[in-house]
Structures are given as structure tokens and as C-alpha cells.
């Protein structure tokens, strides 16, 4: 019983549980596109573009690979796990970097160009993809130079943007629940809210860490 109370009091337990729950929801979204079909779910309203091979490739690459980013990234920030299994940290880190730099971010950029919601949303998603790529690249360079502090900071930023997959959808849910805006208005709002606030939060945290 005391054991259980300890577990329940540990915020890590809750954060992890919540995170896995959202990963499960993301998996549900991913599974809508298995088996391969260009006229399901989100693609039902993207029929103008599903005729383009590059759009189709980008879309399915993004959908199929991005789950890995969420799974590989999360445990990397625990100092204890890093010390206990340094090889695991290295390998998961490699996986994260390859998936982001080769698959998720470039495909995200293509999708951003064709995003719903007009120029504002397109700019938001393209910026997101470019910054995500840049942060991840800098993190990779930093670790190659054995600069651990810089590596950690760039990875925080990178993962803050990766989490926009979840926060964007949460904002959407919250906005619709509270205000019931028009469908594309919601989309324009969350295209920005989804990642900018994550980035601000992590920058504030970095500043806070520097000071203390």
C-alpha cells in the first residue's frame, strides 16, 4: 500500500502515463491510414493534392514514421536512464535524429506547403518543419563535438516542437470545446498555437536553468 502511494505521488508516473495515453491516441490516428488508402480520414478533404506523387509520399512518410519520434524521444530526457543505459540513449538518439532529419521534418515541410487554412497556416507549418530540422541538426552537431550542454538545449527545443503533434490537437480540442469556432478558423489558430507556445515554454525553461 505504501509502495502504491509512493508511485501515485510521483509526478513522473503521471507524466509518463499521460504521455503514453496521448501516444496511444496518436497511434489511433496513424492506424487510420493502414492499409494504404488515399481517400480516408484527413485525405478525404485533400483530394486536390492526393493526385501528386510527392504529396502522397510526403503524407505517408510523415504519418508512418512520426510515431517513432514520440516514442524514441521521451525517455531521452531522464538523467537517471542516461546514466544507467548510456548505449540505449545513444541508439534511441540516433533513431530520433535519422527519423526527424530524413523523414519527418522534410515530409512535414512538403505537407506544410499544401496545408489547409490558407497562407497563415502554411507559413506556420513550414516554419515548424524548418525549425524542427534546424534544432535537430544543431543537436546532432553539438553531440559530435562532445558539447553536452548545447546538445541538451537543442534537443529540448527539437522535442518541444515534436510534441506539437500532441499539443496542436489538444489546442484544437480545447478551442472547439470552449468556443466552437469555424473548422478552418480553428485550424489557423492551432497551426500557430500548437508549437509557438511549446517553444516559448522551453526557452523560458532554458533561461531558468541557466540562471539557477
Amino acid at each position, binding site marked *: 500500500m505504501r509502495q502504491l502511494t509512493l508511485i501515485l505521488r510521483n509526478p513522473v508516473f503521471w507524466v509518463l502515463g499521460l504521455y503514453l495515453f496521448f501516444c496511444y491516441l496518436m497511434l489511433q490516428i496513424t492506424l487510420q491510414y493502414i492499409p494504404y488508402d488515399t481517400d480516408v480520414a484527413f485525405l478525404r478533404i485533400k483530394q486536390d493534392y492526393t493526385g501528386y506523387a510527392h504529396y502522397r509520399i510526403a503524407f505517408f512518410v510523415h504519418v508512418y514514421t512520426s510515431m517513432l519520434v514520440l516514442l524514441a524521444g521521451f525517455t531521452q530526457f531522464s538523467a537517471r536512464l542516461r546514466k544507467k543505459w548510456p548505449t540505449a540513449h545513444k541508439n534511441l538518439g540516433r533513431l530520433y535524429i535519422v527519423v526527424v532529419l530524413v523523414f519527418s521534418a522534410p515530409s512535414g515541410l512538403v505537407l506544410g506547403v499544401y496545408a489547409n487554412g490558407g497562407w497563415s497556416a502554411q507559413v506556420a507549418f513550414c516554419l515548424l518543419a524548418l525549425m524542427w530540422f534546424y534544432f535537430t541538426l544543431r543537436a546532432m552537431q553539438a553531440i559530435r563535438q562532445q558539447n553536452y550542454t548545447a546538445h541538451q538545449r537543442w534537443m529540448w527545443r527539437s522535442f518541444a516542437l515534436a510534441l506539437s503533434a500532441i499539443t496542436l490537437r489538444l489546442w484544437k*480540442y480545447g478551442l472547439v470545446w470552449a468556443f466552437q469556432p469555424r473548422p478552418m478558423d480553428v485550424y489557423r489558430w492551432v497551426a500557430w498555437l500548437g508549437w509557438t507556445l511549446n517553444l516559448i515554454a522551453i526557452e523560458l525553461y532554458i533561461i531558468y536553468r541557466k540562471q539557477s
Partner: protein
Amino acid sequence: MQYFTSFWWACLCLWAVACQPKSTSENKAQTDEANTKPTQTIKDSSQSKTDDAPKPMSKVEGYYTGVFEPTNFDSENDVYHANKITISIDSLDKTQQWLYGHSIVAGNKRPFKGTYQLTDSGYVAKVKEPGDNRYDGQFRFTIKPDQQSLSGTWEAFRKDFSATATRYVLKRKTFKYEPSLGLPPGVEWAALYNHALMMGHTRKGERLSGDVVKLNASAKALKKEEVANLYRGDLEVIRNAIYARHGYSFKNRKMRFVFDHIDWYMPISIDVRNELTDLEKKNIDLLKRYENHAARYYDVFGR
């Protein structure tokens, strides 16, 4: 860390709301798509020609349209509504004094026949529906050719549903498909539609807004951009207005709440699929894509 956990707590609370079951979603499945599933077929072969437009020369034959108003009503258990009905007088047998016709109301098309007498006040008729449908009954009405009207009462054979007796004063009207007909401004406030919404017959995002009168899906090809930012409720009515222009009688009660109050609307058919123009079919496909998307994704975690 404190800040971080409270953020996730807030997220969890949001999610608790997200996971509430949606009790009304089943409702939708049964009321929508009535137009694609004609449930009635007219078995009586003598009535098989009732779809033909009535002869224009006749004084009596033709369409009479108006409100079918319940006179006994279970106000405790049901939303009050008077449906729009069209009674079509198809032919008169003058030697035998028989009258043939059919009625169309709430997506239900039923033939009737009976006897009539020519009196000072007009043609006084007493006609019956076949009786093999739950909602069949007996009409008594008077047709006044000089006033172009048909008025009377109806009583159901069975009494095991709400509103088993009605009265009506119908006006003679000819039907003509006119693609330019629009919805009147203010239709979004259709009182009964909003009432149904409050009673839980509709889901969030199904409210009508002023947009609903802006697009005519029979008159021009709709663009993706025009429909992408519309609420599901508006899209649904814009699409159903296509069927309404063809005289489709709605099984879907929500649609009746909207269209029954529009002057030009007269229900004359329970299947208009063959009447749709290519333009309309294209628009229906586009509208349905966004309707379905909104229904499935508007208020859930996703896009």
C-alpha cells in the same frame, strides 16, 4: 516540474470531457440519408402512374400543398411539429364518382382512393390509404376549384403513435424545378430546429449560421474554399436544399424543420436521385466530404 505537471493535469481534465460518450450520434444515422433509401413502394398497380404530372386542364386534379397540422398530440413526449404535405389528386372517375390520388408527407408517399360527391361547396371526398403501412389512415376533404383549395381532416387507422389526427387547408400549386431558388434570410433561426438542438437531437457544431443562405449548390459549382470553413449544420442544409428544390419529401425531421417553413418548398417525391443535375451531384460530393469530416473530426482529438 511543478509547472509541468499542472499543465498535464489541465490536459487530463480536457480529456475527461473528450471521452464522454456521444449519445446522439446514433440518432443521426437513422435520420440522415433518407433520400438514398426510399422505403415505400406503391403496390397498387392502378396507382403506378401517380408520378406523372397532373393534367393542367383539369379543374380538380393537381397538387395541393400546405400544413398537415396535428389536432391530437402527445405534447409530453414529442416536439410539436406540423409537417408540410402535398396531396395530389391524380384522377377522377366521373361515372363511378371515384377519386384517386396520393399524399406525400415526411418522406412517406401513400396512394389513396375513395368516393366523392359534387355539392354546392365543392367536391366532398372520403378516401382511404391502403392500410398496410403503420401511418395509413382516412382523409375527408373538400376541394373548392374556384378557390384552388383542398381542406379537411385525416385520421389514422391505428392509434399507437403520436398525432393520429390532423387538419389541413391546402393551396393548389404547380411544381417546377427552379435551381435559382434560395433559402430566405433568417432561416438559420428556424425555431423548431433550434428547439430540436436543445432537446439533444443534434450535435455541437450543427447549429445554423447566417452562412446557410449564402451558397446555392444547385446554381453554381462550389469551390473547396467556400465550404471548408462552414459548420456542419450549414453544409447539411446547403446540401439538402438541392433535394428540396426537386421537391424531395424529407424523412429527416431536422430538415423538415428547416424546409417546411419555406414558401417555395413543396414535397412531391420521395426519391429525387434521377432528377439531380451533374452540377448538383458534384456539389453533393464536395459537401458530403466536408460534412463527414466535420462529423468525424470537428470535436475530437485529431485534425
